[in-house]
């Protein structure tokens, strides 16, 4: 420490030094601010460097105390409330511990805040442009707060997040809506700008299968079609298959069903106004007179060697035994005659005919 004496107090050579003169000399002793400005400025300050500091609570007559830079910041940053704190530079010294309250206008441009509580971040004016929040609860985070590209939230809870751009490496959330989200997922789904896209499964988009091609489809455990191709199939049935030709024209007796089915049949009413109830391969019936009707085939038989079978139901009004038989046969029709056993022709309500042929 340097001092400047009161140079207006002078003593003559070999003169008398009085007590008053000495007091006068000492009383005027002081430290001038200008003296500090004349000192060489330290461009860097080490943690072991020392400064003089007036200890609070000690009277003005007390001597200043020396303190290291480390002690100064350890104590100053570990306690206290800074209502107008504006941290515009990097917090590079040490690790801040303890509780701190940063005012609503504070700006933290660079640094690490290991534990950020909700109360610290409720202000909309709080801006963290570059830093790391290792544990935090941010009740409402606005877009402007998160524009810093180096902003990293390693863990914590963000109850409301509004952002137009940025990357969230790991997001754990049980509720809420995330709009316009772009992220890379490990599974089969990607999300870009709010649009979800399924990964391609390996199948080529298209239509598979036709009347001449059958599709071959591979499905994975997730139900996705991973492969789709087509293959032709033969119109020639395998040996011993049941086919129309086998059933209808086969010379093998055991196969030929056509021989066992009627090529024409009819059920009609021969009384009143005659009418066909149901038929197959019958074009019409012809009423020639009482008990005299013909069954006309739609498709004629190839010859007249077919077998015509007649059936009928006796009407209630007719008490005598009835008979119905074939009167004539041709390739195109069968004429039926119905008579009572006691004599006389009779119209029948139910008259049936079936015809079989090769």
């Amino acid at each position, binding site marked *: 420490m340097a001092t400047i004496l009161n140079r207006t107090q002078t003593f003559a050579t070999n003169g008398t030094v009085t007590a008053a003169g000495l007091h006068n000399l000492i009383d005027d002793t002081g430290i001038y601010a200008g003296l500090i400005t004349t000192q060489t400025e330290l461009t860097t300050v080490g943690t072991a460097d020392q400064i003089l500091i007036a200890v609070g609570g000690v009277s003005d007559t007390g001597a200043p105390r020396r303190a290291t830079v480390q002690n100064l910041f350890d104590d100053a940053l570990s306690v206290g409330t800074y209502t107008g704190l504006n941290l515009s530079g990097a917090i590079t010294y040490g690790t801040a511990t303890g509780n701190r309250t940063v005012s609503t206008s504070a700006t933290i441009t660079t640094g690490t805040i290991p534990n950020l509580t909700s109360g610290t971040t409720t202000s909309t004016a709080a801006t963290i442009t570059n830093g790391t929040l290792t544990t935090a609860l941010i009740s409402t985070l606005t877009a402007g707060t998160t524009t810093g590209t180096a902003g990293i939230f390693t863990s914590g809870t963000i109850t409301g997040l509004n952002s137009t751009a940025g990357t969230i490496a790991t997001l754990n959330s049980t509720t809420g809506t995330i709009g316009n989200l772009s992220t890379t997922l490990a599974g089969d789904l990607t999300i870009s700008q709010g649009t979800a896209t399924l990964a391609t499964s390996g199948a080529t988009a298209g239509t598979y299968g036709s009347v001449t091609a059958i599709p071959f489809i591979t499905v994975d455990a997730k139900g996705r079609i991973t492969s789709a191709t087509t293959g032709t199939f033969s119109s020639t049935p395998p040996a011993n298959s049941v086919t129309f030709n086998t059933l209808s024209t086969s010379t093998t007796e055991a196969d030929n069903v056509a021989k066992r089915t009627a090529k024409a049949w009819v059920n009609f009413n021969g009384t009143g106004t*005659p009418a066909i109830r149901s038929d*197959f391969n019958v074009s019409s019936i012809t009423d*020639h007179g*009482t008990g005299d009707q013909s069954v006309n085939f*739609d498709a004629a038989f190839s010859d007249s060697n077919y077998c015509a079978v007649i059936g009928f139901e006796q009407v209630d009004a007719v008490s005598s035994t009835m008979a119905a038989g074939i009167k004539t046969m041709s390739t195109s029709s069968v004429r039926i005659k119905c008579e009572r056993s006691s004599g006389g022709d009779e119209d029948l309500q139910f008259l049936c005919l079936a015809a079989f042929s090769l």
Partner: protein
Amino acid sequence: MNKIIIYDNGVGVSVIYPSPNWNGTLEELATKDVPAGRPYKIVDVSEVPSDRTFRNAWEYQE
């Protein structure tokens, strides 16, 4: 079908009642089922009596 075909069978009249499954016209049916050379007419079914007591006495008239 309300139309039927009647034709002269030489000794009386025959009446053709089409099958409900007949898909052609009555003219086509007549060509197929009326004996060749026989005159015929296509008439409404109501023109033929449903009382067949004297069925064998019916006559064909042009």
